């Protein structure tokens, strides 16, 4: 369809495209506001290139462009770091780890906390999220004050590591982190792959699977295991021996079936 023809048909064609692209993005789990922005991007691309596309395949082409825009956005998006609570500089009791914990954006912090081991997670939640004293935390968990302090120190260290590894473009949304800690298929896959290829690459691999089948990490389900296994095989085949990959996939399957 030529640009001239498109213009002749007026805005109805673009309204149709807008609705199609917007709905397509929403089904991929994109939020309303992001979907609006991305739709504008897709239509901008369409305005430039649509005349080169077979009219019978325009919607398929738009769907592909939409998917690519979602991937690009996920890849290049910088995390929005809203400081929920400024560190109390006057508080002499605050160490570097305390300041870190109190200064990161709350969603990111919650996501990182959910990745901690059970005991570390409880410690951090009671001490920092419920803002209770060390003594109260110790009583709550049936530990001595000394042991609680040591355990808190280690938990903060682990939390710091998680926050540092998920820094930058690797910011985790709480829903994704919940998937990880609650043994959802995406979470299990990321957890299984991370020791081998690092958190970022593991996340990219699983997210890529989700996007390729029009889903998000949150909506990835057991029936998508074959797609996930195929993707893991394709990505890891040059990096790991086939028996190791099979074992990894077996681990992921074992956790969800």
């Amino acid at each position, binding site marked *: 369809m030529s640009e001239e023809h498109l213009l002749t048909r007026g805005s109805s064609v673009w309204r149709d495209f807008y609705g199609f692209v917007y709905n397509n993005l929403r089904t991929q789990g994109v939020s309303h506001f992001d979907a609006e922005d991305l739709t504008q991007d897709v239509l901008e691309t369409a305005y430039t290139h649509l005349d080169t596309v077979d009219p019978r395949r325009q919607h398929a082409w738009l769907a592909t462009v939409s998917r690519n825009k979602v991937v690009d956005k996920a890849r290049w998006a910088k995390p929005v770091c809203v400081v929920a609570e400024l560190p109390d500089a006057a508080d002499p009791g605050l160490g570097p780890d305390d300041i870190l914990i109190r200064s990161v954006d709350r969603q990111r912090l919650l996501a990182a906390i959910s990745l901690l081991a059970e005991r570390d997670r409880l410690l951090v939640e009671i001490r920092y999220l419920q803002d209770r004293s060390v003594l109260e935390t110790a009583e709550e968990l049936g530990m001595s004050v000394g042991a609680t302090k040591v355990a808190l120190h280690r938990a903060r260290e682990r939390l710091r590591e998680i926050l540092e590894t998920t820094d930058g473009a690797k910011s985790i949304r709480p829903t994704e982190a919940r998937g990880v800690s609650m043994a959802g298929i995406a979470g299990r896959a990321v957890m299984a792959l991370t020791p081998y290829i690092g958190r970022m690459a593991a996340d990219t691999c699983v997210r890529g699977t989700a996007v390729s089948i029009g889903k998000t990490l949150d909506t990835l389900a057991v029936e998508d295991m074959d797609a996930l296994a195929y993707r893991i095989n394709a990505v890891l*085949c*040059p990096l790991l021996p086939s028996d190791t990959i099979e074992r990894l996939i077996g681990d992921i399957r074992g956790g969800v079936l």
Partner: protein
Amino acid sequence: MTDTQLRSQPQNDPRGTRTSGPIISSGTRTAGLIMLSVLIIAGVLDHLASSDRLGDAGDLVLVFLTLVPLGVAVLMLLVSRTLAAGPVRGQWTTLSLGILSAGVGNLIFIVLYLVTGTDPYPSVADVFTLMGYAFLAAGVAKAILAYRGLLDIRHAVIIASGFSVVALAVVYFTVIGPYVIFAPTETQSFATRVFNTIYPVLDITILLTPAIALGLLVSKLGAGRIAWPWWLVVASAATLALTDVVFAYAGYYGYGRTPFVDLGYAAAPLLLGFAALVARDIYRS
């Protein structure tokens, strides 16, 4: 099932993460310690031999150090055979063939040295050493290309190429130019000059540069275990490059092989051998 067997079984934590005990096996740790010990002892003996305090026994130390790559090649080939057939096995087999070729070159070198009593450099042995470079470069290139599915490899290659240009310039202006190419003619033969130039240049261009690109790529993986052996490969390439540069520099002053150079040439393949063992453990973990 005994306690030991139980401990060796892969365990699953509540969140399903595979944690199968120590990633580096005790066998690999022991092998690493043996390699390090051998290197240190051989270094001390080589130092004594270079100052003629070991008499004819000094040649045995040189023979031993020269044959290290051959031993490492056998080890790496055995490790490669334990891996399932596929691209990963191909990468390690290619690297093993590189070390094997260099090892054969060393074997020819030491035979010629013992038979003729003169330093056979350059000689037919260098043909095998150069073939070794081709295999090693191919192995590293295969490893780089393996990351295409996960990472954008272009930036790493561009940065490594930039490093290559800078490193070549530095080596040229500090060593190759003044001490090899433009050195007084009586200190080195033409053939020696050619090979003293070729080796550092090859080290930097086809070995260290791809290795650095590989290092940059694997560094993007953060805590990914599969990066570990490749870091050792990078260290091996860097060791070899440094040793060749020192060798070229020492040649200007009339030294053939010094203890530092002998150790460098042994350490580089040992690092590769250790990398293969670490890789095997990681693939099994």
